[in-house]
């Protein structure tokens, strides 16, 4: 992968945020116009690595996110390219007016790398969970929304964000992510889903932390149940890969979306918007956090609690496969 100064082996030893920090340092060498901002979370988000390397191009604004995103807009207006990092919950809610009006409305080149997303900061409690950000961010005009599945994909996304004009929101987790790729050269392309597992019985569409879980579920279902489950890594939520969704609807007729996010407005909704337009009948389910404030606990446990770990996903697949929906007399194949 161009510009990557670490190997896959290194990547497995680094947290996702560390890979982000390292990638941003490399990008900073290549592009002197990149500047960094954080709000007293330079260490946690790892943008501090950039700050240490380029102290004159880095601003720690203290615990003041509204000012930070406004400043980022001002910096972008001078031709600089700000990368801004704080927790996802503060990026998407605390400073949303600034993100909306100062950055998106003016279509400015500000890259928001939001960490501790979904339930990944599970033990911190619900104030630090962020299960609404995909819904919020994808509703902003001009915004690009990326949810990388692992560290390597994060590195690709952070680089792709630089090349993509306008505001970009990248949502990553706290801590380590399971590696889903064997090589960095899998052909990351913004807006193009990656087929992680081939299948024709049903398609699982996942993003972020749930990609590895969906993949594990598909492997297990193949071995145990003999099911052929397609797994799509929908790393870009906006612009979404409509072609991959339409193909999955037509070829597998059963779709389950899985996300570490509320089932309202996120990946599942984005997929539904496209799928509903195909004119095909299909069976559909959205997995994620239901309409509630999430409980406290370890990320892994919480994913299991909400049925979005490998076992929960497998159970939903089996349930859908068990439904003989095609025998339903109201089933209309074509509209």
């Amino acid at each position: 992968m161009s510009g990557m100064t670490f190997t896959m082996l290194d990547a497995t030893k680094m947290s996702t945020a560390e890979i982000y920090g390292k990638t941003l340092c490399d990008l900073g060498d290549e592009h002197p116009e990149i500047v960094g901002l954080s709000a007293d979370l330079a260490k946690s988000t790892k943008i501090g690595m950039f700050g240490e390397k380029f102290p004159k191009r880095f601003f720690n604004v203290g615990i003041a996110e509204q000012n930070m995103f406004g400043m980022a807009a001002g910096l972008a207006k001078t031709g600089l390219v700000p990368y801004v990092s704080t927790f996802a919950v503060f990026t998407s809610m605390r400073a949303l007016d600034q993100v909306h009006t100062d950055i998106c409305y003016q279509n400015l080149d500000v890259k928001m790398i939001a960490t501790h997303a979904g339930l990944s900061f599970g033990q911190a409690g619900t104030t630090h969970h962020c299960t609404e950000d995909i819904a919020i961010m994808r509703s902003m005009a001009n915004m690009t929304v990326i949810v990388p599945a692992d560290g390597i994909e994060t590195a690709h996304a952070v680089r792709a964000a630089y090349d993509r004009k306008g505001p970009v929101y990248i949502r990553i987790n706290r801590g380590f992510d399971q590696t889903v790729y064997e090589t960095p050269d899998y052909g990351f392309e913004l807006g193009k889903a990656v087929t992680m597992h081939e299948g024709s019985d049903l398609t699982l569409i996942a993003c972020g932390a749930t990609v590895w879980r969906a993949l594990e579920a598909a492997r297990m279902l193949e071995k145990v149940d003999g099911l052929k489950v397609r797994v799509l890594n929908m790393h870009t939520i906006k612009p979404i890969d409509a072609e991959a969704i339409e193909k999955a609807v037509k070829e597998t007729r059963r779709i389950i979306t899985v996300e570490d996010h509320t089932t309202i407005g996120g990946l599942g909704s984005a997929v539904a918007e496209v799928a509903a337009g195909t004119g095909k009948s299909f069976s559909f389910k959205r997995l994620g956090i239901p309409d509630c404030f999430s409980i406290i606990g370890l990320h892994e446990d919480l994913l299991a609690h909400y049925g979005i770990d490998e076992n929960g996903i497998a159970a939903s697949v089996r349930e859908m496969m068990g439904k003989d929906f095609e025998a339903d007399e109201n089933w209309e194949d074509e509209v």
Partner: protein
Amino acid sequence: MALATEERKRLEEKAHELRSLCVDTVVWAGSGHIGGSMSAMDIMTILYHKYMRIDPKQPAMPGRDRFILSKGHIGVGYAPVLADLGYFDKELLKEYNHTGSPLGMHLDSKKVTGVEASTGSLGHGLAIGLGMALGARIKGESWKTYVLLGDGECDEGAIWESAMAAAHFKATNLVTIVDRNRCMIDGPTEEVMALEPFADKWRAFGFEVIQADGHDFDSLAAALDKAALAEDKPVVILADTIKGCGIDFIAGDYKWHYGGFDGEKTAKAKESLARYREARLAASGAKGAK
């Protein structure tokens, strides 16, 4: 340094023209934020006609000074300033607020040439201006950023986040000006949400505070000259102003935050502005004779 008589007269005449054009714009628009436009007009006039390094023929000139209208609701006051300078065709003002017009209540930087930032949600402009000022510093450029805040806007917590940061980062190439007209939508600032001791608040946040009369060009010039010498602390100019300044039947009345003029009121406003011009010129002449 006091202004030369000719320059003072030039600014007085320009401010009068712009106030008058603002009244016309409010009529064309149907209604608008007339009170806050009139209170800020002398500040915008002296910035655009004396202090700012700009070229309306090259609106994107890299070395230009930047102006951020953080109190973005006074588009009916700001658009005439830009149109008069030739940033865009004055005729466009006649379509203000019309469906499909580039000009609306809060000006859009993507649609209106000369507008540096889309504002309107209050409390945002100082952060944007600070980002610009720090951007200039990183790039080694010498242009200045001027941010005009409303006083009621200073209720917003985001303003104080930015103030703290401006002092922390020693943004001396940023000049903050507050249009202290003491009025907000629901009443006088001190009744709705007290700002005083306002100067002390800015000082406590690390600013050098310069008090000015926002309707006296000598006072504003002295403040802006002093601001240019900032070395260690960022500067805020607290400009005492009168909401609706120049139009006697609305002046000082918070209820004229927003409104419209019928034919009769328009004529009265124009007559009042003419009298106000005479009074200002007379005062200005007296100063010049000193």
